């Protein structure tokens, strides 16, 4: 049948993009994987080092702890935001959408730089807090975990709000009315009816924020402490300063495996789909 031939010919249009990705993405990642097992000699010693020495374990633990805290704060801030977006009038909704969208489109570097300015000991936030007499001495808001969390939560918040918004806006309002008619007070009705219905959005948002946090580099590098680094910084440092390809490749593969594991779990258990651009 001629149309089959045409359809099959059209299939070749995927070839250039696929060839490019295989050559300039898949191959390089495999090259890195090989380095982790072959540099300087063949074996799993790089993985053994990364997973046994206290300094590297601490960095891996930092990464998980910072990502977890970022996820929790994003959920605490993002849920009320998404809820309000769904239940606000059209004008207020539009404004809120742009408030979330504009930073989403803004360079991470620009946003992190803004925090660098604000969180200094003599920065605006300390000025205000000192000015109104809430604190007596400047708070240490930067070059520590506080700074990293302030920056990361702000930057990753859209990844929580988008999936939550799309799930919350599909919840049928009549469930809450039914609960009210059956005599449930509003708060228990929220926790027992609305919240469970919104869990798919909560899981998707948390998974997205957590996975993206795991590999974060720019924000912790600029706002974090020198002794409290995340795994991406360690990878960069090992390559840039020590040229240690074996160890940094092993760390990269551990990061990749962790990301893939969470992704698969989320997909299998919760049926979460990777809608990065909501």
């Amino acid at each position, binding site marked *: 049948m001629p149309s089959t031939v045409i359809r099959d010919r059209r299939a070749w249009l995927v070839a250039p993009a696929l060839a490019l*990705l295989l050559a300039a993405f898949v191959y390089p990642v495999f090259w890195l994987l090989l380095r982790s097992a072959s540099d300087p000699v063949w074996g799993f010693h790089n993985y053994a080092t990364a997973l046994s020495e206290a300094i590297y374990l601490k960095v891996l633990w930092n990464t998980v702890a910072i990502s977890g805290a970022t996820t929790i704060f994003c959920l605490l801030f993002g849920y009320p935001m998404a809820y309000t977006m769904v239940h606000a009038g059209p004008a207020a909704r539009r404004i809120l959408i742009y408030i979330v969208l504009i930073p989403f489109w*803004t360079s991470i570097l620009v946003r992190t730089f803004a925090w660098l300015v604000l969180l200094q000991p003599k920065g605006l936030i300390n000025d205000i807090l000192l000015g109104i007499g809430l604190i007596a001495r400047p708070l240490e808001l930067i070059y520590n975990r506080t700074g990293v969390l302030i920056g990361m939560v*702000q930057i990753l918040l859209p990844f929580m709000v988008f999936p939550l918004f799309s799930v919350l806006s599909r919840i049928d309002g009549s469930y809450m009315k039914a609960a009210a008619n059956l005599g449930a007070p509003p*708060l228990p009705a929220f926790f027992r009816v609305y919240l469970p219905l919104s869990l798919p959005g909560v899981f998707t948002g948390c998974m997205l924020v957590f996975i993206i946090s795991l590999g974060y*580099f720019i924000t912790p590098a600029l706002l974090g402490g020198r002794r409290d680094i995340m795994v991406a910084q360690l990878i960069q440092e090992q390559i840039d300063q020590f040229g240690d390809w074996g160890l940094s490749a092993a760390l990269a593969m551990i990061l990749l495996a962790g990301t893939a594991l969470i992704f698969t779990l989320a997909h299998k258990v919760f049926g979460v789909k990777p809608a990065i651009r909501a």
Partner: protein
Amino acid sequence: MQQVHIWNAARIAVCILVAVYIIAPIVIVLIISFSSAPFLTFPPPGWSMQWYENIVGNPAWIRSLWVSLRVMLPAGIAATVLGTAAAFALNRGRIPGAAAINGILMAPLVVPVIITAAALFGVFRIWGLYGTIGGLILAHTVLTIPYVLSTVGASLQLVDRRLEDAAANLGATPWMAFRSVTLPLILPAVLSGLLFAMVISFDELVVSLFISTPVVRPVTVQMWSNIRGDVDPTIAAIATLIFLFSLAALLVESVMSRSGGRKTPFS
């Protein structure tokens, strides 16, 4: 009932605080870029354009802006052409292993970018692409294809295939059918994919940081290396320029998606 009012008030208060938390830092950087003071104080003691004049007068900034443009345009166009072709093939052709191919093309979005950066740095040094414009273009094309693919793919699913079949039945070659029927229908998505790709290329830092040198240095890498030294409002001015570029792209995108009748993620 009183309890509900308190909760609603609390929710709205949280929203306002979060909105300020999201927006205020960017606004403050915008304002500081027009400051007359040589340090980052807020509010500024007076106003001036000297930090923007600084950028124009400094060959390093101009050179790096030029590098960013020379990377952004070819990478954006290449990603748009390759991504659109791939989206069309995956949506219309019968391809064995289409899901796997789609997974490979989307992978740069899922794999942590630090891994891509380290991997490309490793092979680009062997291939002689380290520190070249060509290397940056290649890397940014790979990084932006997923955005074009998902944007155009979503749009292609909405196009009525019978229109293409009708064109074929009327004797159009597949290329003619694509050119005169499909392409006009998906054009808003293709253009928004192009914009997306260019903004991401312009804003990209991590991969560029690994594969660029002081000689060939995009503006974000230049900004990065300056942030860690003495910070004066010149950086705020550069940050403002980068922000305005993204904002302009977002506005164009939202106008286009409205005129094209395509639904934005929230409408």
